[in-house]
């Protein structure tokens, strides 16, 4: 077994050496002898030709274009910018970030030839790549607060947290926990029904109900102030259930 493996390896080695030898033998005679001055009878080598096509010619940023080229009588083809030496014919996908003109140069014994393809890249007016970084500096705490801590609505004459409002307060609590320096005020509001005095009490209880919910979620008591505005600061003035509901709320403001 051992013997057989060794024999096999040896054979392989010989084979490879032979192949190498053959290649180098082929190459060496072609290169060294400088061609003798052209004999009269030999015709001049033909000039190379190249065509370069791009499809499509116009893209949005991020999309790609197929470059395709064909040559005749060329020994060497380069496409710039960015691609360098390429096969004498072929195609390639490119995705330029901005408009660009590709130049393909074919070089052969007969000289050089070039062709160009212009690709137009449309860049969106407010580029999404830019919009993303911009909010980081400008998305003030106030904006983030407003986005993450939403108004809580109540039933008529009630100060209990409604089941459908719980998720909202929980996500507010989650954000507030990540932003432990935010001090804020919970404003209690009531719709116009019932007496004005009673509504000052009712709205106070609403503000406190939300506060207690938040402290129960771990928000420190000291960060939260409460204010009762009763029915004095309505969002809307019409006498409809829709409007009443909008006014029965606890709203949040930064301190």
């Amino acid at each position, binding site marked *: 077994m051992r013997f057989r493996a060794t024999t096999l390896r040896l054979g392989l080695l010989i084979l490879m050496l032979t192949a190498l030898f053959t290649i180098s033998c082929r190459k060496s005679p072609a290169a060294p002898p400088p061609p003798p001055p052209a004999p009269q009878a030999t015709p001049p080598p033909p000039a190379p030709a190249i065509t370069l096509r791009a499809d499509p010619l116009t893209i949005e940023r991020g999309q790609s274009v197929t470059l395709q080229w064909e040559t005749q009588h060329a020994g060497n083809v380069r496409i710039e910018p960015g691609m360098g030496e390429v096969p004498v014919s072929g195609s390639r996908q490119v995705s330029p970030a901005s408009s660009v003109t590709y130049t393909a140069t074919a070089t052969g014994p007969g000289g050089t030839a070039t062709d160009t393809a212009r690709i137009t890249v449309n860049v969106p007016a407010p580029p999404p790549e830019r919009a993303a970084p911009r909010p980081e500096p400008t998305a003030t705490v106030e904006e983030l607060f407003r986005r993450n801590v939403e108004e809580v609505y109540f039933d008529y004459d009630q*100060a209990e947290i409604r089941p459908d409002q719980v998720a909202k307060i929980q996500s507010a609590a989650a954000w507030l926990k990540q932003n432990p320096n935010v001090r804020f005020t919970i404003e209690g509001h009531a719709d116009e029904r019932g*007496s004005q005095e*009673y509504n*000052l009490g009712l709205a106070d209880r609403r503000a406190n109900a939300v506060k207690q919910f938040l402290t129960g979620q771990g928000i420190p008591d000291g960060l939260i102030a409460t*204010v009762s*505005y009763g029915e*004095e600061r309505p969002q809307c003035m019409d006498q409809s259930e829709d409007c009443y509901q909008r006014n029965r709320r606890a709203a949040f403001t930064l301190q």
Partner: protein
Amino acid sequence: MKKFWFLTILMLGSAWTSISQRIETGTDRGTLGVRIAVPEFQASGSDPKTTALTALFNQVLWDDLDYSGVVVLVSRSFYPVGRIAAPGDVKPEEWTAPAVDAQFMAFGSTRIDRGQFTADVRFWDLKNAQNRDVLQPSRHRASDDSEAAARLVAHRVADAIIEVIGGGIRGIAQTKIAFVSVHPNGIKEIYVMEYDGANMYPLTSLKSQAVTPGWAPDGQKIAFTFVPPKGPPVINIVSAIDRRPHTFQLAGGSVTTTPSWSPDGSQIAFATSRDSNDGPEIYVADWNGRNLRRLTISPGTDISPVWNPRTGREIAFVSERNGPPQIYIMDAEGTNVRRIINDGGSAQNPAWSPDGQHIAFAWQRRGGNFDIFIHDLATGRNTQLTQDSGNNERPAWAPDGRHIAFESNRAGTSQIYTMLADGTKVRQLTRTGKNQGPSWSGYLQ
């Protein structure tokens, strides 16, 4: 459960039977229903303004007497023909004859004397030939010859007449009413007007919401709730004379509201949530806000305290301690709490009558609208004063105990009205915009 409903229905039924019963609150004192003739006072002198001012004087005097609740004014269409300006013009037998049947008669003359509107007044007992003058013949002189001057003289004459035939209870024609005027942009300011709605003017210009005004017993200050543009509602006090603010120390908390003066003017009861996570509680402090004492500890809202104006030893207030808001009374130290309205619904805005015997309040007894009721503390009986006329809320007693101001939206928007404490003689005082929350001054002179 069934038993409970049965009981409820029984109770509601028994409450309804009392609605039509009239209440006797002050209107039963003095010479009530006495018939008075008031022929027009006659203008004299040469000042061209006299005629117009005299017409105004006559109108105001008539209205003051008419709304007093003390007298019956005999219609002028029954009067004998002829001008009555002086005793010589009066033939008493014509005025006591069955067609007129007047017991008393007010008459006299008016003029502008050196730039001052002046009235010479007689008030006669037509049936007592020996002693005609019930009031000493008197001359009432204003400081100028403006319309306000003519109105003031009429109010003085009316008050003098009411006092002498109204059982010694002074007339209220020179009292004022503070109220909340709601601007279209939601701003609310405290305004003051005469008791009949004349000469209204703004007391505050805070450009925010100023609500729940309450006159100090001295008539010189008004406490109210100020809802600032940003931050908790607080109690403010302003001079009703020169509008200067007085300091009321901050209580803290998310709301401090419904101030009410003790009858001696030294303390204020109010509601604040400074120590509470579950609605405001009732406190008492000196009228500068110092020396704070907590009176209630209960679940839910406790609000709208009012003192017994006669004794100063009890406080009525609204509490949610047993469910929907109801009216309770406690001793001024916070002890001995008892519920006074037991028929359910929502009872609010207690207003204690000057004699200490009644509490007027707004009651939404079975849902629907609020109406004004009077609770008789001695009998426990509730009497309904308004009905079938929109929401009627926030009763406020006049110092005579005969009149109640209130807020009603019976004409579409909320406006201030007055009525007698038996629900009659309803008079609309404000007409434009939206007006709420009246507070009636004490006697100002």
